[in-house]
């Protein structure tokens, strides 16, 4: 299970769900700077898309190793496609063929005299920060399930590594209760290919005075002080064994599986590491 190499013959899919609700305008520390959660999430999402595109690039061009969907949820129970042209899902080669919008990222570094200096570097910018309205997470989960259901049903994907759904959010759903959300998550995770069930990874962004972080939590780390995080923990997939060595390496000595596909109170840095690990541990040939 979860051992199928990702190739053009056996593609997979990545679905990114991005919380763009009003609370994402709140401040957060991100890469050493104070910014908004929305800005941090956009940066992280663009980083992941960049990683996916570049991982598929070979000397003969970008190969169609996977399909990608990016859905934003916010406003008046609105779920909308954020990829170029408003498409819900496109292949990585199609995404790479679009002009990459480039924005400027500010990098903070310390000078030899101890002072802080800022430097601007270009970075890809497919996704813009967004913060307005409610948090229709249930609706987003339903859309993700439809996408993964249709994708898994296609004959050519039957033996593929299953789709991976990333949900990046800062809070509770406003369009359902907790049990509804658990059920919606379970329906996503129930989809499968011959290689395994769809993986649902929840990334919870929440400021914390103690700078506490929990990263791919194991059962012994499941005592969360935040009820939204507990809910997201319940919604998250148990990480397959194939990912355990990398997760243990990232968490450090003493980390014991099984792990859940989630981060709690993640600062943006943990969020980057989690997304990348979740997406690149698998083999691409």
């Amino acid at each position: 299970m979860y051992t199928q190499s990702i190739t053009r013959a056996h593609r997979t899919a990545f679905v990114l769900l991005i919380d763009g609700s009003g609370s994402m305008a709140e401040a957060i520390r991100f890469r050493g700077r104070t910014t908004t959660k929305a800005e941090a999430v956009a940066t992280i999402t663009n980083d992941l898309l960049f990683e996916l595109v570049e991982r598929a690039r070979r000397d003969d061009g970008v190969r169609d190793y996977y399909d990608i969907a990016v859905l934003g949820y916010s406003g008046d129970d609105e779920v909308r496609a954020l990829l170029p042209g408003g498409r819900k899902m496109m292949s990585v080669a199609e995404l790479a063929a679009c002009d990459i919008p480039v924005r400027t990222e500010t990098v903070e570094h310390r000078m030899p005299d101890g002072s802080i200096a800022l430097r601007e570097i270009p970075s890809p910018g497919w996704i813009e920060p967004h913060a307005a309205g409610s948090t229709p997470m249930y609706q987003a989960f339903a859309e993700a399930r439809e996408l993964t259901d249709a994708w898994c049903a296609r004959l050519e994907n039957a033996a593929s590594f299953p789709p991976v759904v990333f949900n990046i959010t800062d809070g509770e759903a406003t369009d359902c209760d907790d049990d509804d959300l658990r059920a919606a998550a379970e329906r996503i995770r129930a989809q499968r290919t011959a290689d395994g069930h769809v993986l649902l990874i929840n990334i919870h962004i929440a400021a914390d005075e103690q700078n506490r972080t929990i990263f791919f939590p194991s059962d012994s780390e499941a005592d969360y002080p935040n009820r939204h995080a507990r809910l997201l923990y319940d919604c998250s997939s148990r990480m397959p064994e194939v990912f355990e060595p990398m997760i243990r390496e990232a968490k450090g000595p003493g980390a014991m599986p099984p792990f859940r596909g989630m981060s709690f109170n993640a600062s943006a840095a943990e969020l980057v590491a989690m997304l990348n690990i979740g997406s690149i541990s698998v083999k691409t040939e």
Partner: protein
Amino acid sequence: MTPTLQLFTRALLTPDLSLRTLAGAQAETAPNGLPQLMRTTRFAEARIRWQGRRWLLSMPLTPSALPAIERTAVAIKRLNAPALTDYRILPGELCWKDHAGIEQHCDLVLQHVPEGKDFDEALLTEDRGLLLQALDTLERELAELGVAHNRLKAENLRWCAGRLVVLRYHDAQIGGDRQADAAAFEALRRRLAATPGPQAANDVTAPYNPIRTLDGHRWTSHLFEGLICVEDETGFGYVDADNRPAIESRYLWADDFHEGRAEVETPTGMGLIDREGNYVIPPEYEIVDYRPAESIVYVRKEGRWALFDYMGRQCTEFGTINECKI
């Protein structure tokens, strides 16, 4: 933890903040300002300029990528052959902070790209007979060296100074199957035969052989700091520009001189010598990796690393590569 491509890209854009040896490097970028990456199964690669020369800088994508090429990198360095270019692992070159704010390091692989033309460009501009001859020569040289490239193709060949040089040794094997590249060479010859010849710019062909010819040696390098590394029946040594012995040929292997120092290997291990052949670092270590640009030497003993200075003085205790800081 293996770094991400995004992290590699940021490092290429901020080399002074993220790279140790290559702090002054400049990445080749697309018009949008982003470095252009290329990847193989196990490495991502970018083109950079550093110290006035062009290089390929590769980052491992999996934890197993670097161990697989360590022996190749050391062996290539010892071969010191004109068909091959400088190919080395830079220990702990990429620096970043992980999710917990802990500083992390990752080795990178650096390969020199000699001035010249890509093979495809050479097909359009160079005499077909010369290219065919160069392919024959390259195949013979690789066989003599015992190098199986295993990924020989046009993209990994470079035409420079009248000969072909191979790039990207990530899949190479030293002492492996000598016929491993035979099919690739045949494919290149077929491609050469199917390509129209270049338009004649003039009617004078002047092949240029940059290799200095010195009689009486099995192999010779180039002139560095007044000395030429040579291989004789008794081993590697050095002669001056007039082919007079300067340092006796007694080493299992020797490198060219840089800033008055050269790495050598003896039956007891690797060491570092000065221009008189005196040991600055005695030949008792597994690896002696001299960095002339920094005047420091990375030394490995029983799998652990320490830094030595130009005078051969040990500066750090033996430990992990990440602990090698002055």
